[in-house]
């Protein structure tokens, strides 16, 4: 076991397959009502007020003891900045994208970085770096396949994902959407890295075998994620890839993107995923709902199961649920620390 590390050191060591003092405990999205209220956040202001955002997200680090501070809350920022309709949800419901474009030509991203929500993310990263220099500061971003799905509508993405494997013309259509998504991703990624992000966390939820065929993911998803990943690496920043659902059939592809670590959910057999991914660290895969209604025993059991399966960090299978409780989050962090004390 390494000597005591800061959260940031621990997290970066894990990414580089180096020894850690305890396994890192990570989170995806962190719109936790209890922390929002305790830190004086007001809905929906905390989505566009960097201070409120960082104060709430920061409690995952300062109070619960996780190693990352993750902003923003939810996967809507890219869409709202492009002019799509977004319903802001409630204090306990994340914002959701409600419209899509009919044609790729309708997408205008010229002033993407000027959007107040995008600016909030950038300012929140800077602020979090200042306030929590020892934590890993991680922006939560929408990956290219999912962003393409937001642009064209998820249903259209799913249908086009099979049609494009059958017909060249449909593939051209798909590539048009994907290349726009990638351009937007790059603009946002660069701004996040320049603001000081320690890692970019991408969710490619819609690249899941639940929605598109693995064949499509290998043919279209892997190359575009890799291109984005290479772009991020060239700026000297690591990145993490999350895909929902049972991703075992596509783990090999996920590992081939060059991502510095892969996040998987509870439907995944951790041992199998770790075996397939080889040197690429896998993180996961505690059931998020346990943070709302799990017993201490259940939380400890699932945390240990993931780590015993070879996970290099404990993470929830998806974002932290808004109704997660601080006592359960602390139980989870302690479970990872206890496991580390025994096994590292």
């Amino acid at each position, binding site marked *: 076991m390494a000597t005591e590390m800061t959260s940031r050191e621990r997290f970066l060591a894990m990414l580089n397959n180096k020894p850690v003092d305890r396994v890192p405990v990570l989170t995806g999205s962190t719109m936790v009502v209890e922390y929002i209220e305790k830190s004086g956040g007001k809905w929906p202001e905390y989505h566009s007020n960097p201070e409120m955002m960082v104060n709430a997200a920061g409690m995952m680090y300062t109070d619960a003891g996780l190693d990352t501070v993750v902003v923003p809350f939810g996967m809507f920022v890219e869409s709202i900045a492009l002019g799509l309709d977004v319903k802001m949800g409630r204090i306990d419901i994340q914002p959701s994208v409600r419209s899509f474009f009919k044609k790729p030509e309708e997408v205008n991203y010229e002033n993407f970085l000027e959007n107040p929500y995008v600016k909030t993310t950038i300012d929140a990263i800077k602020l979090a770096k200042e306030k929590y220099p020892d934590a890993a500061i991680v922006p939560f971003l929408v990956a290219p396949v999912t962003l393409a799905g937001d642009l064209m509508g998820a249903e259209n993405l799913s249908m086009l994902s099979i049609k494009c494997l059958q017909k060249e013309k449909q593939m051209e259509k798909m590539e048009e959407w994907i290349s726009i998504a990638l351009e937007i991703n790059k603009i946002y990624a660069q701004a996040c890295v320049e603001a000081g992000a320690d890692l970019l966390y991408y969710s490619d939820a819609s690249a899941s075998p639940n929605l598109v065929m693995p064949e499509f993911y290998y043919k279209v998803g892997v190359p575009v994620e890799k291109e984005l990943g290479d772009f991020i690496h060239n700026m000297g920043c690591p990145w993490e890839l999350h895909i929902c659902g049972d991703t075992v059939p596509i783990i090999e592809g996920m590992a081939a993107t060059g991502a510095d670590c892969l996040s998987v959910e509870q439907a995944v057999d951790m041992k199998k995923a770790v075996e397939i991914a080889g040197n690429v660290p896998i993180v996961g895969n505690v059931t998020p*709902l346990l943070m709302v209604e799990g017993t201490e025993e259940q939380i400890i059991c699932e945390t240990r199961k993931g780590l015993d399966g070879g996970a290099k960090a404990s993470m929830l299978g998806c974002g932290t649920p808004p109704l997660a409780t601080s006592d359960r989050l602390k139980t989870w962090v302690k479970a990872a620390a206890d496991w580390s004390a025994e096994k590292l």
Partner: protein
Amino acid sequence: MQIDELPEEIQGLIEQLDEAAEDEDEEAVEELTEKLLTTGVDMEALTLKKLSISVMDGEEEISAGWTKVALKIGIDPFKTLLEGLAAGMSLIGDKYAKGEAFVPQLMIASSSMYGGMELLAPYMEANTSGEEPSTVVIGTVEGDVHDIGKNLVKTLLSANGFNCVDLGNDVEADRFIEAAKEYKATAVSMSTLMTTTMAEMPKVISMLESGGLRDKVKVMVGGAPITTDYAARIGADVSPDDAAGAASWLKEIITSSPSNTDRWN
């Protein structure tokens, strides 16, 4: 009917008709239909078979073409729907249930089925059999806008003869209750993809209970994070594995339940 066992000449005409349908060349489709009729092949059986295969394969233009053939040769539109289009949807639904097909395949099949249904609609008179189809109120719960899974359940329920009242996505709890009452529903089907919105499901169930409606309707819950355990814990009747499972479970359960009239009166 086995198409690959038909004489080569007929198979050739079928292929040409497929191509004409794909090119949306209506004249050629009509001409080839005439030619096929002169061969003496059982045109009704052939058309229904082609419809089910093209829906299963998600060949939208081809299933639209053969739907036009069905109309031209005068097959009862209800029969075309049930034994052609819907049968194809069930075939792909079964494959999905066995892990042999993926969601996009279900979606393009569903789109083919609906495409054919639109063509049939103007020719379909109201069902006069006197037997009311069972109604399912279906929607994605409040806070969740994902409706692909919900739409697939709806498609397969429709393909199995259920009348679906689709409330869409992001549906507030009380709208499920109002619709169940209004349509004297056989079942309420709720879906969510997100762990963050699962808590809406028990809310709807407790509203059904407090409104005295719980014993009148079956409650199905589904979506990626929903497990059988969770369904049981919140008092739902079932969480089918997938869309095909939802249709077969409901079909089975209604045969052993009191009729809608008995439950709602």
